[in-house]
Structures are given as structure tokens and as C-alpha cells.
């Protein structure tokens, strides 16, 4: 069994409530930080830990924190990104609903390190029931003196609020999130300035993912060096992986980075193999935005060695032969899956979620959905496949925020690795076997 940091106490009965959480060592990091550490020393520990943002981009957290501007007399904000809308990703939901206090503790400890007096958890509107869970946890934290005025008699004040979104994937992008938190449409801002300089209400702001923030208490309690020893190299620590699709045991798994992809898919400890004894066809390893890889390429590296569950190993081979760890949304497809139809669900998603600000993304995502629909309906031509390729290549890199890239990469990788399937749809549509996944699953 690998080391567990976030889910160590997941199976303790009552861990959702304050008492049990506290008895399991909860809130120790707040005590240690406020009573014995300076803010600078805390940022230093997070830097040493090698922790990288778990929201998808993998940016070093300590470095992000050290960029936070600290002009005199201007408030600073910490905003937790709990928008979690990347298809295939459900780890933040799992963590928040089962161990809400780990996020509350992480928010308090992180806020202290950043000199923040007001913090927000921005959560997607559909996670209604988790708002209640979080607000209960926050209420308990206030009642026990971990939040509010003069925390632990230190003179440090902190208020923490939960802010709900209302259904918009784009609000997971940090500047769109801040717009939304200001009560506006979720249109991403042009960067620079980065949020660290001008974020919420124009004030210096740190935005971090739920899992990133929840990893901070361990680092403060045990030291950055201890955390850095877990995992491999620049992939330090543990990672929550949301596993879904055609596997025997879908769910959220905390892995120590460095196990092999093969082990993750087939071992009983994790996914438990492909459902109904079928063969593996393809994997989307890090949420809908990352390139899809066929079975042999996700299991093995070009060198013939086994691919590992780390930032570096998953991206080995570049865009042509690799993928990304992304948000850790691990979607597994068996041999019966149509790559074209799966791609259609992604293309429709990105079209639906494009904020409409940039023409390449607004128009391009709409075109890609339409063309894929046409191909699926049996009216496509070979030229349509080239057109799809052309469109995705013109979106990539030409938009204000990375949603454009996220929409392009799944299309590019599907055509790159599975062009023959697209061709089958256009040359002999009647021969394409339309699988009913419901009947397949419930066979």
C-alpha cells in the first residue's frame, strides 16, 4: 500500500465531523504555524516540498506563493478553486464531502502563510450538497476558535466563505473564477497582470486547487523535505486520481506518484482491470483536455519501459506520443469504444463551455462539434477529417485562456492515433458497429 496523506483517515467513522477529525490530529498545522512559524518560513517549507498545483497545470505552489505582491494597506486574498468541472474529474468532490475539515484546515494554514484575512472557497453550483457540508465544517472551525478574530490569541484574524458558481466549466480557469466571484460573467482576463499582482477586486490573490490546499497541513506538520521524499523527482507527493470508464473499480484513489500506469489499471488495489474481461483500447489520463493515448502507448514508453503515473512520465513522448497528468481524471475505454463518438462528447462539451470571447475558440469548437456529428451520422468525407485537423490547429495557441488548447488537444490526438476509425466512419458508415454501452455494462 502506498502512503496516504489526504485520505489517510478516510475510513475513520465520523471523520466528516470536527471531533473525530481533531482526534486524528486535525488542525495541528494551524497550531504549529501560528504558534511557532513565520509566514516566510512556511512559504519556504512549501517550496522545499516540491508540491505542484493539483488543478491541472502543475505549477510549483511555493513559487506561486512567493510571487504574491504585498503592498502596504492593500488586502490580499486566498481563493480555493473547487470548481472541478473537467470531465472525468471528481476527486475534489470526494475529498470535500468526506473530509471537509482537511480543506478548512488547509485554508487557514495557507491563509496565515500568505497574510490573508479573507478567504473564499469557490465551488461549482452543482455541488450544492457539499456547500452545506463545508459550511458546517466552517461553522465548527469558528466555534472552536480556528477561524474568526484573534485566532489562538495571536492577533491573527481570518474569515472563510463558500461561494457557489452556477454551471460554467470556464469558471475553473482562475481569472474567470475571479470574475465570477466578483458577480460577473466568467470571461477569462488577459494575463498579465497575474492574480498574484491583481486578482480579486484588483488585489493580490492566490488561487489554488482543493487538493493543493489540502496537502499543505501535512507539509507544515512534517516539513517540506519529508513531503519531497514521497513520489519521484519533480513529481513529489501523492496525487488523487479519479478513475472512471470501463474498469471494475471506478473511484478516487490516492497514489504515491511513481507507480506504473499498468499497475494502476490492473491491480486490485486500484482500478481492478477492465470490466467484463474486455481488452483495453485507450486512456484519457488527466481529464478531457489531455491527449488520448492507445493502450500500448499509455502502458509503455517509447523506450519500452513502463510508463509511470508522474507528471514527467505521462508527458514523455511530447504531444505526438505522450499525454499529461492534468487534473488526474483517468478515463478508461475498452475495445468496444468508438473513439470518434467519445471525441464527439468532448467536442460538444467544449462548444457548450466556450465563453465566446475569442473567435477561434467560439467558432472553432462549434465547427468541430458539427463536423463530428456529420461524420457520426455517416455523411462525412475524407476532407472533413483534414478540416477537423486544420481547425484544431488554428485554435491552439490563439486564445486568451487555455480552454482553446484544451478543446484542440483531444481532437488532434484522436486523429493522430486513431485516424483509421475516422476513415471507417466516412468510407463505410454502415459497417460501423454502434455499441450500446448500457447493455454492454449491464450484461
Amino acid at each position, binding site marked *: 500500500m502506498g502512503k496516504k496523506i489526504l485520505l489517510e483517515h478516510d475510513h475513520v467513522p465520523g471523520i466528516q465531523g470536527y471531533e473525530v477529525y481533531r482526534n486524528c490530529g486535525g488542525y495541528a498545522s494551524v497550531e504549529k504555524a501560528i504558534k511557532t512559524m513565520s509566514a516566510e518560513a512556511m512559504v519556504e517549507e512549501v517550496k522545499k516540498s516540491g508540491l505542484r498545483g493539483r488543478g491541472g497545470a502543475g505549477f510549483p505552489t511555493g513559487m506561486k506563493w512567493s510571487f504574491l505582491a504585498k503592498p502596504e494597506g492593500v*488586502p490580499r486574498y486566498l481563493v480555493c478553486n473547487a470548481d472541478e*468541472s*473537467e470531465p*472525468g*474529474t*471528481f476527486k*475534489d*468532490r470526494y475529498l470535500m464531502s468526506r473530509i471537509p475539515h482537511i480543506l478548512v484546515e488547509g485554508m487557514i494554514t495557507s491563509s496565515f502563510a500568505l497574510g490573508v484575512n*479573507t478567504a473564499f472557497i469557490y465551488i*461549482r*453550483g*452543482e455541488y*450544492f*450538497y457539499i*456547500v*452545506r457540508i463545508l*459550511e458546517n465544517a*466552517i*461553522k465548527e472551525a469558528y466555534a472552536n476558535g480556528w477561524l474568526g478574530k484573534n485566532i489562538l490569541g495571536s492577533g491573527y484574524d481570518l474569515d472563510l*466563505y463558500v*461561494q*457557489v458558481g*452556477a*454551471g*460554467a*466549466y470556464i469558471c475553473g480557469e482562475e481569472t474567470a473564477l475571479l470574475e465570477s*466571484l*466578483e*458577480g*460577473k*460573467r*466568467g470571461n477569462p482576463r488577459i494575463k498579465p497582470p497575474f492574480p498574484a499582482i491583481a486578482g480579486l*477586486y484588483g488585489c493580490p490573490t492566490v488561487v489554488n486547487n482543493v487538493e493543493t490546499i489540502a496537502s499543505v497541513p501535512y507539509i507544515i506538520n512534517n516539513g517540506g523535505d519529508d513531503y519531497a521524499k514521497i513520489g519521484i523527482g519533480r513529481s513529489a507527493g501523492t496525487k488523487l486520481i*479519479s*478513475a*472512471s*470508464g*470501463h474498469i471494475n473499480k*471506478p*473511484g*478516487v484513489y490516492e497514489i504515491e506518484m511513481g507507480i506504473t500506469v499498468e499497475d494502476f489499471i490492473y491491480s486490485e488495489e486500484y482500478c481492478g482491470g477492465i470490466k467484463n474481461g474486455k481488452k483495453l483500447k485507450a486512456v*484519457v489520463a488527466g481529464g*478531457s483536455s489531455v491527449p488520448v493515448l492507445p493502450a500500448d502507448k499509455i502502458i509503455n514508453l517509447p523506450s519500452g519501459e513502463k510508463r509511470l503515473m508522474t507528471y514527467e512520465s505521462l508527458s514523455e513522448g511530447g504531444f505526438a506520443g505522450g499525454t499529461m497528468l492534468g487534473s488526474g*481524471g483517468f*478515463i478508461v*475505454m475498452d475495445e468496444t*469504444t468508438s473513439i470518434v*463518438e*467519445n471525441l464527439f*462528447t*468532448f467536442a*460538444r*462539451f467544449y462548444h*457548450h*463551455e466556450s465563453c465566446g470571447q475569442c473567435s477561434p475558440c467560439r467558432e472553432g469548437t462549434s465547427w468541430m462539434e458539427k463536423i463530428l456529428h456529420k461524420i457520426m451520422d455517416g455523411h462525412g468525407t475524407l476532407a472533413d477529417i483534414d478540416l477537423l485537423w486544420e481547425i484544431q490547429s488554428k485554435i491552439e495557441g490563439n486564445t486568451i485562456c487555455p480552454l482553446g488548447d484544451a478543446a484542440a488537444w483531444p481532437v488532434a490526438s484522436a486523429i493522430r492515433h486513431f485516424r483509421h476509425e475516422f476513415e471507417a466512419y466516412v468510407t463505410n458508415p454502415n459497417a460501423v458497429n454502434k455499441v*450500446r*454501452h*448500457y*447493455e454492454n455494462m*449491464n450484461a
Partner: protein
Amino acid sequence: MEVKFNEEALAVAHKIIARYPEGKQKSALIPLLHLAQAEFNGWLSPETMAYVGSLLKIQAVEVYEVASFYSMFNLKPVGKCLIEVCRTSSCWLRGANEIIEHIEKKLGIKDGETTQDGMFSLKTVECLGSCGTAPMMMIGAQFHENLTYEKVDTILDSCKSEDKRKTYFDEVTVKDY
């Protein structure tokens, strides 16, 4: 019907507004729209949006601009029971298309429609973070997961007499915090 929060809802609204720094009250807009949608039959009429605007001292058109951006805000009336079924990859891989088909047949409506009696509306939606327990649907604030045809039947039959449109207000405990 005059659009105006009752006392309880108004108290909640004021509590939410008070969270934000002076001059940044517009931050309360999305939470207030959720509250309004729950209070006024599950959708945001032009009158409702104007009323929310008046609470925040902003123009109705500013409210509309925001409300029309977010998929959870309904700008047209919906049934008492809004069924939102996820149609994205992980759910599709485990039978979401067939589940949607099943609901359409059972209720005699298509995606985006409401039954004659105003009881059910069907809306297909994008990934709701329930991919590991796919296929899934959301009704009110509740997630229904690992769906089968039988499970869907039982759930929909049990919804027949309930108005699920107030769920937001009931679920969220901003009341006492």
C-alpha cells in the same frame, strides 16, 4: 404575483450581501440568483431579475447579462422536477445515451422539454463530477448515481408529487452562518 422575497429569504439575502467588502456587493449576485430561482418557481423571470438587481442596486440588464451566462439559471419556466442527466464521456461510456433514451420514452418528452402537466423537465448536461458512479442524473440538489432503467423508474415515480424547485434554499445552511 409580486416578486419579493419573504422575510426569511430576505434575511438570508442580506447576510450574503454583508460578506463582501464595501462597494463589492455585486459579488452576491450569483448566490442571490440561486436563492431567487429557488424561491420563485425554479426559474428567473425578467421581474425576478429586476428585483434581484434592485437589492444590489444594479440594472436589470446587468443581472440578465450574468444570469444568461450560467447554465444552472433557467430563463424559462421549468417543471416541478428538473431532471438533469450527464451526457459527457465517462457517463456515455457507461450508458448515459440509453438512460436518456429511456427517460424520454417514459415521460414522452425530448431533451429540453417539459411534460404537459408541468411536472417534469428534462435537460442533458455536461459532466457533474460523478464520473466514477456513472451514469448519473441530478434532480434538485440531489445526485442519483449508478443509474439503471429500474432505478430511474423508481426515482421518477417517487418524484411525482413533489416540488423540487426549492431545494437550493433548503439545502444550503447560509441561514445560520
